């Protein structure tokens, strides 16, 4: 048998078809490339960064490197302490992605089981969980996180992940719940019950895999908003603390100098945030279109 025939025999999964649809979508591919570039920047920051992001060059090179404008030497200029902004922006990707990934994991760990429970069980269980979801939705997202973080004197990164995750889970839970409500009525779920399969197996093997596509989309779109939240927290001084190279913190420190013509300290991290958030939004939208199995059964 030829390899091609073997390939046919094995069959093509829905994942492969989704990838074909994704690949045709230019904006989605742009989002993927942009997101990958941020991820690569985060991983290889130590080799990519021309300088140590923490090193205050004014002590070795003098006042010339204090708030130096972008040049061949320092592509994005330097800040008040003579730190290389390009290096700090590259290291900043680590902070943003770390927050984005861990807060999303917290959201998924909390949101998927609660959403699944509400959607599958319905009735009173659903009423209670939906009520909690609606209350959290009604609360200003940012203020809630701010309040949680403010309780701690010296917030560690873990506090920030958990605080963001504890608010962000509601958007995940809501899509999971909607999926479970729709899927539990489907005939293949009824067939699984008729086959005598136990409830846990119906939930995890039959329903959950079919409910994951919107979770992936929601989680990806959520990455963008989490990164914004983190930047906002850092800007207000409740997030990452100096001298961490966090984008929000850099804007916060640099904004005072915007009016003095020293725009590069705040603008470059701002562009990094915009780039990253856009990347995840494009990626999320592309995934939504590509993974929508309802378009084709």
């Amino acid at each position, binding site marked *: 048998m030829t390899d091609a025939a073997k390939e046919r025999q094995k069959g*093509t999964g829905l994942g492969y078809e989704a990838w074909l649809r994704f690949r045709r979508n230019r904006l989605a591919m742009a989002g993927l490339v942009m997101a990958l570039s941020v991820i690569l920047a985060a991983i290889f920051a130590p080799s990519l960064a021309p300088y140590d992001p923490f090193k205050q060059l004014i002590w070795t090179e003098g006042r010339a490197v204090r708030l130096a404008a972008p040049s061949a030497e320092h592509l994005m200029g330097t800040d008040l302490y003579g730190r290389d902004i390009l290096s700090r922006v590259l290291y900043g990707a680590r902070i943003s992605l770390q927050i984005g990934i861990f807060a999303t994991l917290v959201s998924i760990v909390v949101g998927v089981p609660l959403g699944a429970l509400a959607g599958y069980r319905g009735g009173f269980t659903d009423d209670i969980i939906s009520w909690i979801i609606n209350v959290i939705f009604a609360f200003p997202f940012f203020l809630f996180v701010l309040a949680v973080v403010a309780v701690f004197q010296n917030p560690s990164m873990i506090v920030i992940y958990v605080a963001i995750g504890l608010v962000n889970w509601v958007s995940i839970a809501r899509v999971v719940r909607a999926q479970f409500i729709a899927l539990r009525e489907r005939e293949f779920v*009824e*067939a699984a019950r*008729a*086959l005598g*399969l136990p409830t846990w197996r119906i939930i995890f093997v*039959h329903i959950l895999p079919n409910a994951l596509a919107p979770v992936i989309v929601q989680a990806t779109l959520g990455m963008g908003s989490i990164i914004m939240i983190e930047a906002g927290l850092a800007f207000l001084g409740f997030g990452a603390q100096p001298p961490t190279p966090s984008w929000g913190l850099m804007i916060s420190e640099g904004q005072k100098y915007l009016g003095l013509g020293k725009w590069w300290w705040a603008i470059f991290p701002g562009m990094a945030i915009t780039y990253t958030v856009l990347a995840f939004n494009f990626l999320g939208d592309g995934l939504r279109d590509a993974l929508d199995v309802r378009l084709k*059964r």
Partner: protein
Amino acid sequence: MIEAGSRYLTVRGLKKYFPLRRGVFRRASGQIKAVDDVSFFINERETLGLVGESGCGKSTTGRTLLHLLEPTEGEVHFDGCDVGRILKEDPKELRRQMQIIFQDPYGSLNPRMTVFNIVGEAVGYHGLVASSALDDYVCDMLARCGLRPEHRFRYPHEFSGGQRQRIGIARALALKPRFVVCDEPVSALDVSIQSQVLNLLKDLQEEMKLTYLFISHDLSVVRHISDRIAVMYLGRLVELAAKADFFSNPLHPYTQALLSAIPLPDPRRKGKRILLEGDVPSPINPPPGCPFHTRCPKATERCRVDVPPLVDVGGDHFVACFLD
């Protein structure tokens, strides 16, 4: 009328009412009487065809019979066992023995599972064969259902409607059931494919000694496969008889009207068409008395008041009508 447990499968007084929730507070403001006091029996290795127009409660009867929907009232006895009680105590074995084949070949297969897993999952769970023999077992089952075993690692979306229906049949029959509810298994298929699938079901019934409840709205399909035929109208059985008797001597006015609607293949013979007027009443507010009296050409005063019981008029021919 029919004694519980006296036959291979007995359904007695089966009711399924769905609460109707309206308004902001979703308070129950009424009931949909989808299945209302249905009783019948099926003998071993025979096929009972259940016909009726859409929305008359055929599918709900099939699902409630299997306790996939909790019955509001009534009992189902299968081979001497009370199905409802056993499903509460030890559902596993009974589920294996009573299976269902669905109407929609698109919605009834999990799109994220390969055919092998769809057919083999429950076989493994019920421990019907050793895990080393599972692959051979699934291949054999697929072959018996007219599918190519080498396609077993494909996904449902790679198959046609008829092939998917065969996968659904293989899934149900892989558990070696004794009783199968066939819920309109061919009505979503092309006419050319329908007969293939019907013949497959017939052959497998012979081979595996199966008993079928065959639900359909298509009289010619039911005629092809059934030994006995039951007619349902607005949640109730109106007539039940052996096939020959049913077609030669229909007693209920509704059955007579249904049969008169079958086109005759001979253009010179003109059948006398009984035209029914009006629409099926809503199952939310079913008419009092006989459910059919609003459209029945022969309805009398009594039909508007009393519900006619399903009685045996001789030779296991049951009819629910006051007329003789």
